[in-house]
């Protein structure tokens, strides 16, 4: 079912000012999957996504997308077909909803295609259509998160990377967001990698998951396996990271 | 007998050797003249650079003309760009590093050097108008006195029937403030009034609103107390405001780069230097001597005269107190600026005259 490996992170290490955030970490993403990256705060989950996008200082290892090494310059990656929704609902606050979506399609030169994609994105998130002319800074937290994800979809990416999409959102909204992610994966066939601390929500929709602790992968497997084991409990409460 | 002869010959020979050596050493040994070091702090670059350069040239020319004196005269020239911070550091360098015996100053430097001259006990000759700079002990000055300049200015205004004066002046330089205060004093017993007094800081470029304020008062003449570049900018902006009233000033017009702005206008300045000085300066440096250069020339001659009178031996220069005493004894001295007199409080006064810009050049008016 998932045999083509789209994205491979091989053995990377990340150091911030001498502090080691990741050591020898490898993850892979196969076509059509939803993969979860989990772990306690500071485990290094976000660093994995950031390093794919050239936003973290990577020393050692390689990152391969569709068989080719990913360029280190951040702005060259969107064109490959990977979209990144960073942590914190980072919309362009001074632009309105429609303009934000337009910016998402910055790489698209054909105006008709851009328009179509924006309409499709608004189909997916009807609340955005209702508020298309509203300045995005005035939207609620949940609406902003939808906008951030929608913006990523405008390029119709093959791979969607999300960093803590549920952060700071009310439980009801969190549920909605994860429903949307599942729909994106099911209907649009977008491959997804999600960093999440909300274990229940993510394991609900993920096919596979990795668990990180203190910069290393400590567990990895199909999501149902995690629901049955106590590894998560041990990691989050005790810490199982290799010393 | 032979022994005695031998001794006599030996002694005579020794004596002859010794006296030969003595005479030899006496004739070979040069008289070691002591060196009198004179420092100068003036703008050598920038808008006022021509002033310092003129002073430097005049000092060099004066020394050359002085020739072989009792002492060697050495100069140390420091550029302060008319910036008081640089004046202060220049003074410190001259006093502590070069260990000068005298300093010649102009602009902001005089005020700064006055206390240092006392502290280090050297002779300070300022080309400055402020009355409180010379003290006759360490500090001397050589400039046409402000009272004299203003006196002639006011007299000329009265002669031409001027009653209302509009003033544009800077408060950033002491000299202009001193001039203005003496101007106000001088018009007290006349029917001349200041109808508008617009002040500004040096560095200002936009005088238009000050001009708008002055315009309705309708002066008979505008008195501009500031130098380049503000002088030209004020004049230009007054014209642009549609005001055709003439301008006048003290000293200012002859040092402008744009004399067309002041064509046909009279003003008051220190007397022209003597023909002799001007010719010699022009022959040596290729241009007319600028303002302050005759003063520097006179200062060297006055100083050297006083130093050589005060000093007894060429190998030891005299003390400051002795030099000061000799300076004050000078009551008639042929200088580039006329017959010079050193007052008891250290002021060397030179004459004043009315001039006009004609065909772009300053000419003296009949007085």
């Amino acid at each position, binding site marked *: 079912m998932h045999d083509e490996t789209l994205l491979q992170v091989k053995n990377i290490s990340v150091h911030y000012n001498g502090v080691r955030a990741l050591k020898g970490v490898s993850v892979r993403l196969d076509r059509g999957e939803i993969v979860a990256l989990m772990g306690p705060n500071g485990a290094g989950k976000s660093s994995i996504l950031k390093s794919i996008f050239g936003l973290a200082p990577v020393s050692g290892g390689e990152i391969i997308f569709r068989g080719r090494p990913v360029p280190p310059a951040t702005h060259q990656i*969107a064109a490959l077909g990977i979209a990144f929704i960073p942590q914190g609902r980072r919309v362009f606050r001074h632009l309105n909803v429609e303009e934000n979506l337009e910016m998402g399609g910055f790489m698209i030169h054909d105006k008709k295609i851009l328009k179509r994609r924006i309409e499709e994105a608004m189909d997916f998130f009807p609340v955005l259509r209702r508020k298309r002319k509203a300045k995005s800074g005035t939207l609620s937290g949940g609406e902003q998160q939808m906008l951030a994800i929608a913006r990523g979809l405008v390029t119709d990416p093959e791979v969607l990377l999300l960093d803590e999409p549920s952060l700071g959102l009310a439980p009801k909204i969190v549920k909605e967001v994860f429903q949307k992610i599942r729909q994106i994966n099911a209907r649009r066939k977008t491959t997804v990698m999600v960093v999440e601390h909300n274990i229940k929500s993510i394991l609900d929709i993920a096919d596979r998951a990795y668990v990180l602790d203190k910069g290393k992968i400590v567990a990895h497997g199909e999501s149902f396996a995690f629901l049955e084991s106590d590894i998560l409990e041990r990691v989050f409460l005790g810490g199982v990271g290799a010393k | 007998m032979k022994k005695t002869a031998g001794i006599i010959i030996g002694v005579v020979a020794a004596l002859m050797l010794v006296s030969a050596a003595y005479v030899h050493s006496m004739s070979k040994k040069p008289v070691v003249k002591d060196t009198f070091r004179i420092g100068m702090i003036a703008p050598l670059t920038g808008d006022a650079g021509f002033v310092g350069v003129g002073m430097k040239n005049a000092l060099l020319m004066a020394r050359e003309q002085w020739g072989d004196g009792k002492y060697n005269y050495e100069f140390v020239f420091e550029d302060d*760009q008319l910036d008081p911070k640089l004046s202060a550091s220049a003074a410190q360098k001259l006093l502590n590093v070069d260990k000068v015996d005298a300093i010649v100053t102009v602009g902001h430097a005089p005020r700064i050097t006055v206390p240092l001259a006392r502290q280090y006990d050297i002779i300070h000759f300022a080309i400055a108008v402020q009355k409180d700079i010379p003290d006759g002990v360490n500090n001397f000055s050589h400039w046409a006195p402000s009272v004299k300049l203003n006196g002639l200015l006011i007299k000329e205004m009265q002669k031409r029937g001027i009653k209302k004066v509009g003033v544009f002046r800077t408060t950033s330089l002491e000299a202009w403030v001193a001039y203005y205060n003496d101007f106000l004093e001088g018009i007290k017993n006349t029917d001349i009034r200041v109808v508008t007094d617009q002040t500004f*800081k040096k560095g200002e470029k936009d005088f238009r*609103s000050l001009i708008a304020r002055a315009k309705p008062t309708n002066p008979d003449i505008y008195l501009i107390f500031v130098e380049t570049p503000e002088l030209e*900018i004020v004049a*230009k902006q007054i014209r642009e405001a549609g005001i055709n009233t003439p301008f006048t000033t003290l000293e200012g017009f002859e040092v402008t*780069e744009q004399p067309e*702005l002041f064509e046909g206008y009279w003003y008051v300045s220190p007397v022209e230097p003597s023909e002799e000085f001007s010719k010699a300066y022009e022959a040596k440096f290729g241009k007319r001597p600028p303002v302050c250069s005759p003063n520097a020339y006179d200062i060297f001659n006055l100083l050297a005269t006083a130093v050589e009178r005060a000093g007894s031996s060429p190998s030891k220069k005299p003390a400051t107190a002795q030099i000061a005493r000799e300076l004050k004894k000078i009551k008639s001295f042929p200088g580039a600026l006329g017959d010079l007199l050193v007052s008891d409080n250290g002021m060397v006064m030179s004459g004043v005259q009315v001039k006009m810009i004609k065909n772009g050049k300053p000419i003296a008016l009949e007085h």
Partner: protein
Amino acid sequence: MDILTQLVINGIIAGAIYTLIALGFNLIYGATKFFNIAHGVFAAIGGYTVFFFFKLSGVSLVPSILAGVLLAGIAGMLSDRLIFLPLRRKRGSSVIMLVASLGLFTALQSVIAIMFSNRFQTLTDIFNIQKTYQIFSGVITQIHIVIIITVISLTIGLFLMLNRTKFGKAVKAISDDEEVARIIGIDTDRVIGYVFFIGSAIAGLGGILIGFDTGIMPTMGMGLLLKGVIASIVGGVGNIYGSVCGGLLLGFVENFGVWKISGEWKDAIAFGLLIIFLLFRPQGVLGK
């Protein structure tokens, strides 16, 4: 009243000049959140380039002005590429960037002084008394009309660029969130380089126009920068309409201020205005 009309005109003239400097400064600040002190020296570079070509070398007016604007723009872009970009990459703190820009300012200013001497220079051959026009009961000169028209055109031009072109939208995105702009595929380093070019070219144009009005001096940059910064902050930093608003406000306050107070207080009034805004409304008149 005669004098009031003239003060209003003077306020607009001064305001236009300050706006000219503030426009470029705000454009760069908006995109990079960087307080570029060197901005002032690009005005001097513009003025001195025209001085060199037009006055010293006899090149005709329009090419000289083009050269001045271009050279100022290029100087700005180079300073970004060679100094500010590497510092940004190293995540240099704003203090380091500020010091670097101050160092650049001083160095370039010294070079100009060495090449052209410290003295005040005029850009026209004879000390040109400008053609003047009567407006209501006040007077305005030709060069001031040119300055006002230039500022209006530039403001409209910048508005169109920022809102109607793809480049402009990229600039706006970068102003909001530079990292996300990169994530969606904008080559932010290149765009910022062009922003520096445009902003510095505008400063150069300002220096040229001011040079024709009053004159140029190697040290002209600092005074202009300070007024430009005050105009920016008072109007609303990072906002082009803020530049216009702040520039006009500063111009008016200065000129009406000296109506009642003596001329020496002009600078004090300008900085007083700045301090009032910093204390009570730091986002400026049009700030968010």
